[in-house]
């Protein structure tokens, strides 16, 4: 009986507390700025995207501690598009129409970005996209805070060509839009540097490919013809471990045929046995191992927020860090969260990045970023072996004939006064995308 009584009391107290909390929440709701977080928390992409959701929550939490933005608190609206591409578009619509978010941070795979793009353009809302991608796009409603191909793939190839004197190239990738476009750009780039057609081998495999025997045997054969060979890998996440294991088993070491990867980062390495990967390379704009005060602070904050000092930080997290801080600056500069005002305020803003340089927002909605090449270490971290100064992100690759004459400029300076994401400098026309 006593227990029962106690229970009732507790329930009552809890109920009152909940009611109080609810009323204070609904009171506060008018005074908040809503920030949408659109990352998959279940399904195949959960492995990478869950971390980015947590990063956003951390950044928002931190900004609120500093007093929010424009005197208002920020409120995160987290939705789960469940690695389902059409669901991304639905959830994006919900965020903009129902939750009335001022801005959305989200997406990982290019196909999810392509799926939400029409929604953001129709509803005129802003999206910050934090992952390296294939380029060939510039929307008024999207800021691309990850790397464009000229900020990751091309410098990596340059490093192999100059420092390791690589003469033969294997371009291996998973069969979807990012590797296909990147490899097309790389192939054109290599040919422009005088690499012969027969010294380039291109290979595509399905998502999650696990039987690499014949492909690795082919690479071995291709590399045994007396010229220094390297593999440029756009192989996606899960398929990487069996790939590197097979390389190791067939006796290919990082010293004989190095592999440079664009999709293998700290987060991916934390879940695997790193022995077969040691010495292979990766190209990113950020590595957790870079020793700067800003990075150290970021890592400490992350460990505190996630309550584990084993969790790693990675490149897309830095991209969100830059994107979020630049957005805050832009809102404060514009004095409003209105999409058009913020979009114009963004261009030209600068924010120090975590590796000791400055990220500047370019008129084509990309950032300036340094390119780092790192060697994989046994502890799952990267040892930086090469670092470039900041490179300006190029939306339209200069190495593809179709996109060479295209430029993106949302200030209109280079595009005849009218802001445009795909202005053709030859025909003097802005084609296709919405630009009003």
């Amino acid at each position, binding site marked *: 009986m006593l227990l029962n009584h106690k229970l009732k009391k507790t329930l009552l107290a809890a109920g009152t507390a909940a009611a109080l909390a609810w009323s204070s929440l609904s009171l506060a709701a008018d005074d908040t700025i809503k920030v949408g977080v659109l990352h998959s928390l*279940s399904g*195949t992409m*959960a*492995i990478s995207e*869950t971390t980015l959701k947590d990063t956003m929550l951390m950044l928002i939490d931190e900004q609120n501690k500093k007093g929010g933005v424009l005197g208002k608190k920020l409120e995160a609206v987290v939705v789960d598009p469940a690695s389902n591409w059409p669901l991304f578009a639905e959830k994006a619509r919900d965020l903009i129409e129902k939750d009335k978010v001022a801005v959305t941070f989200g997406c990982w795979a290019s196909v999810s970005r392509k799926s939400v793009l029409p929604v953001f353009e129709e509803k005129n809302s802003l999206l910050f996209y934090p992952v390296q991608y294939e380029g060939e796009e510039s929307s008024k409603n999207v800021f691309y805070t990850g790397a464009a191909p000229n900020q990751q793939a091309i410098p990596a190839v340059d490093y192999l060509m100059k*420092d*390791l004197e690589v003469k033969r190239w294997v371009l291996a990738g998973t*069969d979807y839009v990012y590797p296909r476009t990147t490899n097309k750009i790389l192939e054109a780039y290599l040919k422009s540097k005088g690499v012969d057609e027969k010294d380039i081998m291109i*290979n*595509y*495999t*399905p998502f*999650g*490919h*696990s*039987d690499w*025997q*014949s*492909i690795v*045997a*082919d690479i071995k*054969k291709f590399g*045994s*013809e*007396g010229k220094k060979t390297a593999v440029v890998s756009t192989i996606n996440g*899960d398929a990487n*471990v*069996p790939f590197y*294991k*097979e390389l*190791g*088993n*067939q*006796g290919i070491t*990082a*010293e004989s045929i*190095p592999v440079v990867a664009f999709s293998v980062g700290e*987060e991916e390495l*934390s*879940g*695997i*046995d*790193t*022995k077969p990967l040691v*010495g292979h390379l990766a190209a990113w704009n950020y590595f957790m191992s870079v020793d700067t005060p800003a990075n150290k602070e970021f890592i400490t904050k992350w460990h505190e927020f996630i309550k584990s000092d084993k969790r790693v930080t990675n490149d897309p997290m830095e991209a969100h860090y830059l994107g979020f801080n630049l957005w805050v600056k832009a809102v404060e500069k514009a004095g409003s969260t209105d999409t058009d005002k913020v979009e114009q305020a963004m261009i030209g803003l600068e924010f120090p990045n975590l590796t000791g340089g400055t990220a500047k927002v370019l008129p084509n909605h990309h950032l300036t970023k340094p390119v780092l090449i790192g*060697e994989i*270490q*046994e502890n799952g971290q990267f*040892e930086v*072996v090469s670092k470039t100064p900041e490179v300006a992100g190029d939306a339209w690759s200069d190495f593809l004939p179709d996109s060479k004459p295209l430029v993106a400029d949302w200030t209109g300076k280079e595009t005849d006064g009218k802001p445009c994401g795909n202005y053709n400098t030859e025909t003097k026309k802005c084609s296709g995308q919405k630009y009003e």
Partner: protein
Amino acid sequence: MLAKSLTRLSVALIFLFFSLSAVWAEANPIWNQASSLFKQASFDKTREAADMLSASSDPQAPVALKALLEGQLYQHKQNDSLAVLTDTAALDASNGQALSAVNKDDYRKIPVNNTLRKYLRSKLGGLSLSSDDPKVRLASATGLLETVSPEQLPQLQDLLSKETDPQVKAALQLAIQLASLNSSDKAAKLSAITALDGNLNPAVRNKLTALSTDTDPTIAKAAQSTLRNIENQVALNGQLETLFFGLSLGSVLVLAAIGLAITFGVMGVINMAHGELIMLGAYTTYFIQKLMPNYLDYSLFLAIPAAFIVSGLIGILIERTVIRHLYGRPLETLLATFGISLILQQLVRTVVSPQNVPVSNPSWMSGSLEINSVLSLTYNRLYILAFSLLVFAILYFVLRNTNLGLQVRAVSQNRAMARAMGVRSARVDALTFGLGSGIAGVAGVALSQLTNVGPNLGQSYIIDSFMVVVFGGVGNLWGTLVAGLSLGVINKFLEPWAGAVLAKILVLVFIILFIQKRPRGLFPQKGRAAGD
């Protein structure tokens, strides 16, 4: 200037500080120079320091260089002293004395990159043909092949006459022949070309390819014909390699499908959670390895029975709680087990982590068996091929020669009659399902050695498993074996000219067409047991 004098000052201070503990002060000055070079954290300076150390006569220098190569050389963040830190020991690099109370966080690892590693290895190994170690001699002889020149001929011949190790001898002979290919003497060239016939070493092929366009027609002709012979052999070896790759892919398919051959083939239950039972087996391997981190080489032997028990028990649980209520209703079974598969996946995501977990390969499963210079078979694939045949044999024995097997076959052929004969069909159902699930768990142990262990592991194998069972003929273990292996081989022979993506599509199309022609698969059940 200021920075330099500051460094000097700090070095002096450190010197002073350490003279108190009387460890650092006695050290040879080269260690101070080395540590100040290492401190600048640039690969060029590290190389300079390595040069200096290797040139010195200090007995500790080779130890420190070896540690540097293996990533075990650390520098103290405050006092710059160098230490060799391993998991079990901490030594002062300059004098080899053990350090006490070492906190690894106070140290910074001295970074090395590939170029530096290669350089260090050449410095350390003293890669030389006159080394005492036959392995070193072999490595240096093979390293010579690409660049060998006629001037080295007398030296090589001299070495060959002294050589005792057969492998090094062969490598030296090859080097001599390659060197003669470069010589100006036409007769020597021609005899070398003839002698190289049938040699599969890539260096030979590259050399002959260059010679086949030689200005001298006799040499070009000889080179061409030898090259043709070699290429034929390479092609033959290539076919053998593809066959092995196919069998190995097939063995993985067989392993993944064989549990399903029992639950789906024998019992007729469409179990969409089969993939997750495989995944649980793989996770069991991970946990076993976590429990015995020092015995990784043996962990698999423990993981196999453990995975069988874990997946088997979960299988029995699924059968008892869900599937047994749905016998005879395949559509509901399909939906219910699909639900279970999602539950198990999300369970692993929440309880363990949404990330993949690391499962290590035991040392005996890494590397490859080299048959000749173009054909080598990887050990992990060889073991898994043998393992899948073993699992098949055991399962076949259980179903053929044991009491349980007899009852399983009786119930699956005619449930009513079996019950009338006193077989407890409910118990047999549970045990059969448990057996099938347990085998799935064992497959998980094997797959953990090949691919990622994560919540999605099962999903990538479920389709393939059903494909194999349907193609082989429902209810027939032999069918599963033959179907698995042949699908693997077909896939691998298609891959070189169709690409991995198209090969997979072609195999699926082939199976669809095949099922149209023979709806009951390769080995259909005959007679009354077929149930029609």
